[in-house]
């Protein structure tokens, strides 16, 4: 009886040590779910979800504080992906959050006064320029978040829709005309 007790105690102590060590040795920094959600989000960093960037929104979703239908740049498909990832029901966009056509910012360089406000607002450093020097957008890096629009004091930034040309054209889902019964 006593020996059995000792064996059990010894075993529990041993396992406790092993588990305790494993908890320290294999500790995961941060919440892995946040990373997964962040990978699904489009990384425009636009803040249209109400959070200051994609990562904070991902954190809020992971904590269950936020809905999954707040990201317009992610589109309907983004919601589906989040729903699949989190195992929750799909929700359509609510209210005024609607996906827009993709666009890229454009600075009218004749109007730009070189105030650097847009540079400070750009979340992905896609604007080049210096104080009292003309600014310009690196189009390939622009996520189309529109965060540069409000700070501009002379309204010289516009959003250009990305026009379809041969380089970005894609095949459409074939439209099949259903066979109709002959009357």
């Amino acid at each position, binding site marked *: 009886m006593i020996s059995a007790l000792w064996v059990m105690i010894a075993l529990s102590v041993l396992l406790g040590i092993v588990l305790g060590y494993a908890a320290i040795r294999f500790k995961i920094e941060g919440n892995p779910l946040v990373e997964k959600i*962040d990978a699904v*989000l*489009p*990384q*425009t*960093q636009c803040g249209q979800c109400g959070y200051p*960037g*994609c990562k904070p929104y991902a954190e809020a979703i992971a904590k269950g504080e936020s809905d999954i239908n707040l990201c317009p740049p992610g589109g309907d498909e983004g919601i589906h992906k989040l729903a699949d990832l989190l195992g929750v029901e799909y929700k359509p966009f609510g209210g005024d959050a609607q996906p827009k056509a993709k666009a890229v910012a454009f600075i009218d360089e004749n109007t730009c006064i070189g105030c650097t406000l847009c540079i400070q607002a750009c*979340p*992905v*450093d*896609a604007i080049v320029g210096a104080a009292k020097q003309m600014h310009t957008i690196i189009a390939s*890096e622009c*996520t189309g978040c529109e965060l540069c629009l409000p700070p501009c004091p002379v309204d010289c930034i516009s959003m250009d829709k990305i026009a*379809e*040309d*041969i*380089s970005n*054209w*894609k*095949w*459409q*889902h*074939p439209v*099949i*005309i259903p*066979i109709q019964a002959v009357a």
Partner: protein
Amino acid sequence: MRTLFSFHGGVHPPTHKAESTRTPIALAPIPSKLIIPLWQHVGNRSVPIVQVGERVLKGQKIGRPEGKLSSAVHASTSGTVSAIDMQLVAHHSGLPDLCVTLIPDGRDEWISHVGVDVTHTSHAELRHLLRKAGVVGLGGAVFPSDLKTDAHHHQIKTLVINGAECEPYITCDDLLMRERAQDILRGAELLRELLQAEEVLIGIEDNKPEAIAAMQLAVTQAGYRNMEVLCVPTVYPSGGAKQLIRILTGIEVAAGVRSTEMGVQCFNVATAYSAWRALAHGEPVLSRIITVTGNVREAQNFEVLIGTPLDELIALAGKQADTNRYIMGGPMMGIDLPSGTVSVTKATNCIIASSLKLFPPPAPVMPCIRCIRCADVCPADLQPQDLYWFAKSNNFGKAQEFNLADCIECGACAYVCPSNIPLVQYYRYAKSEIHERSVEKLAADKARERHEYRQFRIEREKTEKAERLAQKERDAAAAKASFEAGLAAAENAQQQTINEAIERAKVQAATAHALNTDALTQEQLAKIAEVDARRAKMRELAATAGADDEPPKS
């Protein structure tokens, strides 16, 4: 005798090749205008280097390659540039693209051009010349040949020269092999030299006996020992690069793997020909052989200047009144052209004039009955019925798992489908969606990285600023402390001097001479008391004598 291999599936559509092989290659006259697209190759669009109104000579470069994956574009004849603008081009999208419009002056005046001695020129120089001459894969893939001949990463064993030409109606390679076999072989030998390949296998389908005979004769005459002309069975799509490599070498090339990694490289016969013309004669790719067939009076092969408008080319073969549309390429994989104003490019191997009689509109699409005929004919050994299902339901992840990327879009599945489902369209749709997603994913990853770096930078700047401030404060505090210390020290020093002075004074005082009243004798004291008493008495007297009187000062 070499053993040939075979690939899975394949179909046998009616070939319709006899119509256009009755006459030799005819030289198409210079058209009234040339619309030369600047994007005729895989990679980046060429950048125009001519001005509107400029006179250009035949063979003059009008578009320079942009970036590594690109190729040059040349003026096909001498004339004047009349416009550089967006024109309809031969593309599935039917969208316009940047073209140079050239009005020929009819003189066909060459720019000075000389070939190089290919045996005494470095490989790097030869590759550069291929790029400068705009040599791209003329089988239809239009991949820049200079990059394909750069094989120093891998040891190439076999060079496959593709003369299979499996698609119905097309006979341009057939005629080229019949008439210009020697130059093709010279080109092949040159490519073999560039690739350092051990052997050259020329695959030709057995429905082209004249071409096979011509090529075999040329090989024997020229005495190429490591070159072999092989007759492959006629089955569509044996002319696909992967399929031909499989037939000739038994090697299977998976999607995402370059054939060079397996020690094989493949070029079309027309590419070998144009590579030879470019290097040995200094002639850029200005024209190519194009089969004009279908609903025309005289189907024939023409040597056509790149940029010739379709209408003028069709007129040469005799346009029929009931022509309703044109197909560029073959009926299996070709592009439906938006209009007859588009021009021929380096990728154009065949123009089929279509009529309702020749190509009736497709029968209504019916549901998939999972008969698996498509899987039986798929040359890539895929399961087209499953891929169709996944593409239709936008289940792209699953489509990728079922190796959609291996699909070569040959159209064999759609050809045999009893329900007339446009299967290839579904695969193309799924592929372009998958491609777009991967592009978006890359962009998102880049944006995330940039955003995170920005956050990091802002944070770093903040801490640096805070540190600077703290340093400043510390410096200020230190300065103040030192000032105060100095002040205190000065005060201390002053105090000390004062103290010292006091001390000194004390000492001085202590050591000073004693007063004469200090040490008095009893006698003297008595005398002093006497004097004091007398003075007191006098004061008393004075007080009584008059209040006004001052007491006498002692």
